[in-house]
């Protein structure tokens, strides 16, 4: 078997030595553009120190590599004049040049032929005169480019600028430094090694403000030596190839074609902040070797397919986490309002892979201390007390209403009432959820008028008798628990007059059971739905008054919190979205402000009758999830206006503003919207993503993803009793 390997980095060398060791009779040749002793790059990091797979694959190099390791365990976060340390995150690293020396020597020892300073212009020739061509030529892979019609690569650039430096200043742990100067916020990733690695990252804007696009190497280094003099202690920064880059995210539809296979950065990259690049390249090499163990040289196609099947799910998992991590570092400015302690917790949990409980396992002293800090922060004390419960169990004040903990229970729309009067099952379920120990219990959406009901059996609050049933349930909750009670008021608009949701959503009622419906404009919600009539001036006044009357009744019934629903395609949301608001009066238009006009009028009118000592929250869509609809930028605008107009908290949802939206059901998508809106606008939010454990709630509250969390504990039945 003849194998040509293009690229003499860790991936290419490691694949070569594994295959050669097992098959001494195979001819394996490595071609590398750079000289053998080229030592570009500084330290490389492995996100753990076990490297079990390397030990198994080649004991000798495993020993040499681990002998060279610098191993460290805590992460330090420097921010806002504080240093926060969290242990248990074992990393190991060595100089890239040391790793290459070890692998190169082992290749030579085993008889791999290596050609240095050999530039490959046309990989096809190398594929033709060998049984297998391994493309291990990195980020800007020539092999990938040559076969792009087959591999179908997708290369996108990250937003941030970064540069790698080295320094003799010893860093004993993984160190993140965030520092703001007159040009903006700088992020430093520094870690130990024979020489320390010191990566600088910033937004393009900050980088330009600092004039780095025009500064040369000497000036550039001097700038950071000065800015971080307290961390560098007089040591200099060094640069081998002074350049600022954006991180390229490489993906390929497939990594193999005929007898050509891509490994390492040529196939896939992951942002350097998760420290997985070299590890992935070496694990690729192992899997490729195993593919040949499985199928042998006679079936090269099957061997490389086996490699891809083995690696793809693992690589994609790492790439997903890396994407979250990269986005965090591209948008760190968003978190500058967080206190250093919370800033650090948010940083540690950024990729979605590490939760509150996971941190507790890694370093329980850290989470204990965080609990104490968070309790003090939540309760406004002056000093930490020795005993504190986790973030989920800390109180929170919305407006003037203080809820005893962060868990919110509420139920989905039901349909067993009659003429707006809630059935005993509906109020009993509310009371039951309230007694389960949440900080806040919310009703299902309650209609402010008969026309605004989703179903004939939806509960309402538009006649005096309706309030009595709720009042009893509220009293029951108040008697049995500390939970605060909230009512969600809505008008179903274009989604009204449908059958119960038991057998599907938005199935219109038969004509004889139905009623006329209204919306911002005459937009059909589904192709089967009744077409609503566009609201005229009288309708606008009438519905606003309905909301006001319902708010007064809700106050009488004793609710502490009123949540106004401006989402999910219901009436108020139909004004917000350009997809459902075609009005040409002052309540419609190109700009989000005019589409907000009516919902804000309603909010304002409701506030005028809602007591100041109680809280008002709004449920709002972060995005329509549809081209031509509102996007997250509009979501920021909506949230900002609602907050400025007196909404004490934003409950963040997404989509359903049209029936043909394209929602995402990754269980953390809605949490990310909540986090972005909360930290971008610096307002309190409630998360609504599907979370089922206290760990989820602690992580969300602790990291500042949301202040309250709607949650779905598996042992609580949200169904009708």
């Amino acid at each position, binding site marked *: 078997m003849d194998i040509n390997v293009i690229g003499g980095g860790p991936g290419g060398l490691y694949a070569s030595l594994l295959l050669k060791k097992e098959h001494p009779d195979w001819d394996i040749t490595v071609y590398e553009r750079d000289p053998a002793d080229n030592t570009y790059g500084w330290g490389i990091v492995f996100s753990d120190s076990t490297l079990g797979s390397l030990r198994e694959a080649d004991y000798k190099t495993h020993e040499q590599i681990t002998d060279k390791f610098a191993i460290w365990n805590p992460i330090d976060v420097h921010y806002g004049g504080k240093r926060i340390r969290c242990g248990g995150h074992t990393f190991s690293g060595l100089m890239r040049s040391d790793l290459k020396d070890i692998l190169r020597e082992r290749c030579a020892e085993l008889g791999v032929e290596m050609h240095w300073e050999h530039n490959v212009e046309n990989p096809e020739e190398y594929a033709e005169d060998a049984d297998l061509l391994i493309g291990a030529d990195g980020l800007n892979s020539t092999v990938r480019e040559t076969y792009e019609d087959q591999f179908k690569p997708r290369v996108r650039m990250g937003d941030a600028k970064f540069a790698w430096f080295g320094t003799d200043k010893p860093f004993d742990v993984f160190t993140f430094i965030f520092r703001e100067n007159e040009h903006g916020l700088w992020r430093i990733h520094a870690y130990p090694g024979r020489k320390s690695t010191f990566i600088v990252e910033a937004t393009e804007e900050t980088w330009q403000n600092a004039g780095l696009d025009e500064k040369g190497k000497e000036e550039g280094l001097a700038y950071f030596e000065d800015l971080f003099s307290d961390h560098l202690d007089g040591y200099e920064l060094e640069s081998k190839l002074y350049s600022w880059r954006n991180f390229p995210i490489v993906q390929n539809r497939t990594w193999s074609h005929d007898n050509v296979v891509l490994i390492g950065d040529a196939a896939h990259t992951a942002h350097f902040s998760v420290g997985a690049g070299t590890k992935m390249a070496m694990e690729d090499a192992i899997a490729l070797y195993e593919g040949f163990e499985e199928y042998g040289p006679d079936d090269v196609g099957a061997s490389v*397919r086996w490699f891809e099947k083995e690696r793809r799910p693992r690589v994609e998992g790492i790439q997903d986490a890396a994407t979250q991590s990269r986005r965090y570092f591209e948008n760190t400015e968003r978190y500058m309002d967080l206190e250093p302690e919370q800033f650090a917790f948010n940083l540690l949990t950024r990729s979605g892979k590490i939760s509150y409980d996971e941190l507790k396992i890694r370093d329980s002293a850290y989470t204990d201390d965080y609990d104490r800090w968070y309790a003090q922060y939540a309760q406004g004390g002056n000093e930490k007390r020795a005993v504190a419960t986790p973030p989920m169990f800390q109180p929170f004040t919305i407006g003037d209403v203080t809820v005893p903990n962060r868990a919110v229970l509420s139920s989905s729309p039901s349909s067993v009432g009659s003429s707006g009067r809630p059935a005993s099952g509906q109020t009993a379920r509310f009371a039951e959820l309230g007694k389960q120990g949440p900080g806040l219990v919310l009703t299902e959406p309650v209609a402010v008028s008969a026309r605004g009901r989703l179903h004939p059996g939806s509960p309402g609050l538009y006649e005096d008798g309706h309030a009595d049933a709720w009042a009893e349930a509220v009293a029951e909750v108040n008697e049995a628990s500390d939970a605060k009670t909230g009512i969600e008021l809505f008008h179903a608009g274009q989604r009204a007059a449908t059958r119960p949701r038991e057998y*599907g959503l938005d199935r219109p009622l038969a004509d004889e059971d139905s009623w006329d419906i209204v919306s911002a404009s005459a937009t059909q919600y*589904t192709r*089967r739905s009744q077409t609503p009539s566009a609201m005229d001036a009288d309708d606008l006044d009438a519905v606003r008054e309905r909301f006001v009357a319902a708010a007064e009744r809700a106050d009488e019934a004793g609710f502490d919190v009123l949540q106004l629903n401006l989402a999910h395609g219901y009436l108020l949301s139909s004004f917000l979205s350009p997809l459902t608001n075609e009005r040409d009066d002052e309540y419609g238009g190109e700009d989000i402000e005019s589409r907000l006009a009516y919902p804000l009028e309603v909010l304002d009118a409701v506030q005028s009758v809602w007591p100041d000592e109680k809280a008002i929250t709004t449920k709002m869509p972060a995005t329509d999830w549809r081209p031509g609809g509102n996007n997250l930028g509009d979501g920021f605008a909506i949230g900002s206006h609602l907050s400025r107009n007196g909404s004490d908290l934003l409950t963040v949802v997404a989509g359903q503003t049209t029936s043909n939206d394209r929602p995402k*059901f990754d269980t953390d998508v*809605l949490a990310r919207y909540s986090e972005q809106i909360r930290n971008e606008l610096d307002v309190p939010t409630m998360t609504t993503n599907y979370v089922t454990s206290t760990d989820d709630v602690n992580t969300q509250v602790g990291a500042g993803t949301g202040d309250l969390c709607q949650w779905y504990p598996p042992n609580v039945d949200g169904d009708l009793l």
Partner: protein
Amino acid sequence: MEGADAELTREWARRAEAGPFTSLGVFDRLVYDSLDPMSTLAVCAGETEDIRLATSIVAGPLRSTGLLAKKAATLDVLSDGRLTLGLALGARKDDYEAADSDFGSRGARFTKQLDELREIWQGDEIGPDPVQEGGPELLIGGSSDPSYKRVAHYGDGYIHGGGPPKIFAREAEKAEAAWAEEGRPGDPAIWGHGYFALGDEDAAEAGREYLLDYYEFTGPFAETIAEGLLTTPQEVVQFIRGYEERGCDELLLFPTVADEEQYERLEEVVENEWSDA
């Protein structure tokens, strides 16, 4: 699968009902040596009284909606309300060609079809009225965002395509998230499935070959599926437990070798080793 005849089909149905099982499932493939799922279930319905009868899955858009609605309603009537209709897109181009149904537009047509099925079952035009209120229990499969949306909008639950418990858990959770976030009351029914070949190495090899052949169209993924074949009692029990722990309501285990022994071996494992039986 190949080699399943009238006698074997009836025998399996009878024994499953008498044994520890709660449902019978059938596959759908057109361009393959396999029995038609709806007709097979009709035969099973005649042989049994209590056991649930499930299609897992039928490729919906392969069929005309009106005919599918009538067939399903008929099966529901003739089985006295025991039909669970599992539907998904199906990924086989050749099946679509043979059925004279457009492959490229199947996603959009599937969504429309689900809406129409509900309409037909609840309406008065195309009878019979299904025995189950709202129509046969409707499960929807697939693992893309639109699949989960279909579950939340039209389904009674989610039917997973098979794989290790960990993957099942991740995808079932998405179905549950869609259900909750889209505002459907209650919880979706969650079904899963796996493949087994119990006995000696020959049985295991035959099972793997069958899967490689059946899933050949998926390319290298067929190997992943074949690797997941359950070939020992221990693997079967582990698999069932893994699924149960992750909230699976009903798990279908499919034989990959058509012989009576396979049934007996599975029954033995489930009866003796699975405490919940």
